């Protein structure tokens, strides 16, 4: 018995730590899901004093009906549209850029790549004002173009593709060239199929980036018919208060779709970011 314990306690301690971490991570989401089926006073009466009933869903689905009467469905559709287009266009643009950085030597390529890496460090808020001015000048303000185009090029995704393409053996590429394949064919028929895990990880990054973006959609597309999901979420607050159950209902919906994608492609996503298991 003592032997079992002495061998197992580190594992048990690790599980206990993970379980505690999991509770702290999941509890707010569970509270929001449960609260989305309750009225507002009930939500707060169960946390003062704290009761485990706060995590038990109520039986009133009216908040879900109410949010869809407030244009939330349109915001969900818009966000799916913007995220999917950004994902598709982003994979093509960023993988081509990564391929170019990995396979071609040209004057200033290192400096240019350093600039791409620098874009990681620039928060979107920092470029919001010049980008806003640019969108107005080219006539894209308050349109889907303003929502999609700035989100396509992504420094992290270019970096991921570049690292992957640089790791493909030169001999393979040279053999393809000797066989008469164009660079486009090498990129499309040899490199991209090999880069499937990176593509899945990059796709998730691009999708989640658009799904979660708030400030830019808020200022670039103020028309209600262009609202994205995070902008719509903020609108469940009135002048002095928040309609908590509706905000919880909308947050639940906003959280579920990316979660599904992440659960489905979790392994590839982690591999793409850590570089493990790609080769």
């Amino acid at each position: 018995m003592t032997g079992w314990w002495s061998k197992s306690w580190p594992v048990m301690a690790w599980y206990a730590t993970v379980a505690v971490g999991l509770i702290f991570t999941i509890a707010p989401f569970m509270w929001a899901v449960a609260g989305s089926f309750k009225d507002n006073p009930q939500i707060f009466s169960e946390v003062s004093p704290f009761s485990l009933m706060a995590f038990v869903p109520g039986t009133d689905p009216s908040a879900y009906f109410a949010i869809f009467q407030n244009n939330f469905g349109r915001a969900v559709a818009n966000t799916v549209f913007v995220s999917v287009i950004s994902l598709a266009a982003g994979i093509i643009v960023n993988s081509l850029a990564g391929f170019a950085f990995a396979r071609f030597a040209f004057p200033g390529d290192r400096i240019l790549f350093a600039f791409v890496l620098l874009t990681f460090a620039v928060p979107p808020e920092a470029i919001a004002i010049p980008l806003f001015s640019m969108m107005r000048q080219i006539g894209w303000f308050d349109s889907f173009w303003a929502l999609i185009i700035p989100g396509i090029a992504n420094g992290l995704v270019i970096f991921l593709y570049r690292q992957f393409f640089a790791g493909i053996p030169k001999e393979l590429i040279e053999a393809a060239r000797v066989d008469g394949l164009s660079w486009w064919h090498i990129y499309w028929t040899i490199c991209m199929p090999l880069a499937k895990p990176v593509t899945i990880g990059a796709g998730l990054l691009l999708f989640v980036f658009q799904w979660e973006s708030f400030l830019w959609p808020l200022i670039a597309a103020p028309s209600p018919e262009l609202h994205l999901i995070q902008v719509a979420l903020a609108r469940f607050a009135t002048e002095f208060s928040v309609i908590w159950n509706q905000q919880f209902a909308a947050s639940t919906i906003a959280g579920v779709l990316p979660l599904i994608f992440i659960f489905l492609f979790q392994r590839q996503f982690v591999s793409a970011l850590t570089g493990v298991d790609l080769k």
Partner: protein
Amino acid sequence: MIRKSLSIATLAFAAMSPAHAQESDDLSLLVGIWAVEPLTPWVEQFTEETGIGVEIQSFPFRDLLQTIEVRGSAKADDVGAIFVDAPLVPSYAVRGLIQPMAKYLEGADLEEIWAPATVDAGSWDGMMWAPPLNNSSQVLYYNRELLRAAEIQDPSSEESGRITWEELVENAKKITDSEQGIWGMVFDQISRYYQLQALPESAGGGSGVSDDGLSVEGMLTNDGWMKATQFYYDLFNTWNIAPKGIAPGQTAELFAAGKVGYFVGGHWNVSAFQEAGIDFGMALHPYFEGGTPVTGTNSWHIGIWGHTNRADEAAQLVKFLTASPEVALDYTEKHGQLPAHTAALLNIDISPKYNNMPKAGMKLATYEAANSAVTRARTPAFLEFEEIVNNSFEDIRNGGDPATVMGEAEQRIQSAMRRYR
């Protein structure tokens, strides 16, 4: 494959890209989302009368301020008029985000149109910049059931019986039952200057900013502010009669759930408390014994956008929405906010509709607005001032030493004000 994907994307763009936004000649009006419903019919009437099209763009409170900052920095000229939070009038005026309304109101007796305090709030540097759309006031709500259980008398709604903070604290101690999650008192706008300014003002500490709006030296650490911030500290850390870890917007829900004895809050909560079915009453706002009764006030104003080249048309819109008695009466009725227009204030005074709850609460709020309201600090650095003061109140609520916290706040604000001197 790529060609097919691109075709689908192109079709999708063609179907969903709106072309209207860039082609519209409408004057944009940036408002809070709460104002869309009550203002839309009047904006439509304005268009009918003047032929000037107006597009309403609405945002939640914080996002509206952020949008104004971004569009101002980009010098966007596609906005006509904007909602202006009253204490930001000096800041927007100094930074060119709004244009003066004075020349469009020449000859008018402003204090005949709007309540004097709201005229002050919309003015800066001796002229009107943004006329008021509505006003706000603070009152004291109490849970009759909890007060009865603790054998405490209802607070008075008469000036002679106005409750003091000292009395309220003693009563709140009797009401608080931490095991049951019952709290003695809570503020509506917890840790926000808008509401808590009343504490140092009542203790004789002033607004926290010098008369010229450009200094806070010695203003946040004077005796009045120290008394007020120590009181705020004690509520949460010594007497433990008010809850920590709860944000503005959640406190009203706590009162509505029957968990709070006294709720110091805005008059706008009446309908929500009635809907929640709680047995509550309303009284005059508390004050410090030996001090003066003071309440928070001001609300939304409308100003001409600083970068618009259609200022004359925007001014017509601003005048129509703020100075018409019909709009003021209707906005008060639909939005339930305290009016700034004298015609609507008079209506509250004489109309029998305001004798019964929930509208009766408006009479109490009108009384406070007329007798105890003080405008928030007048400074072009209000955004910086408010953020630092709000954070300081929150630090004190979480156990920070009031003298240290306010001393640091004073230094930071003083430094932030340099750019405006």
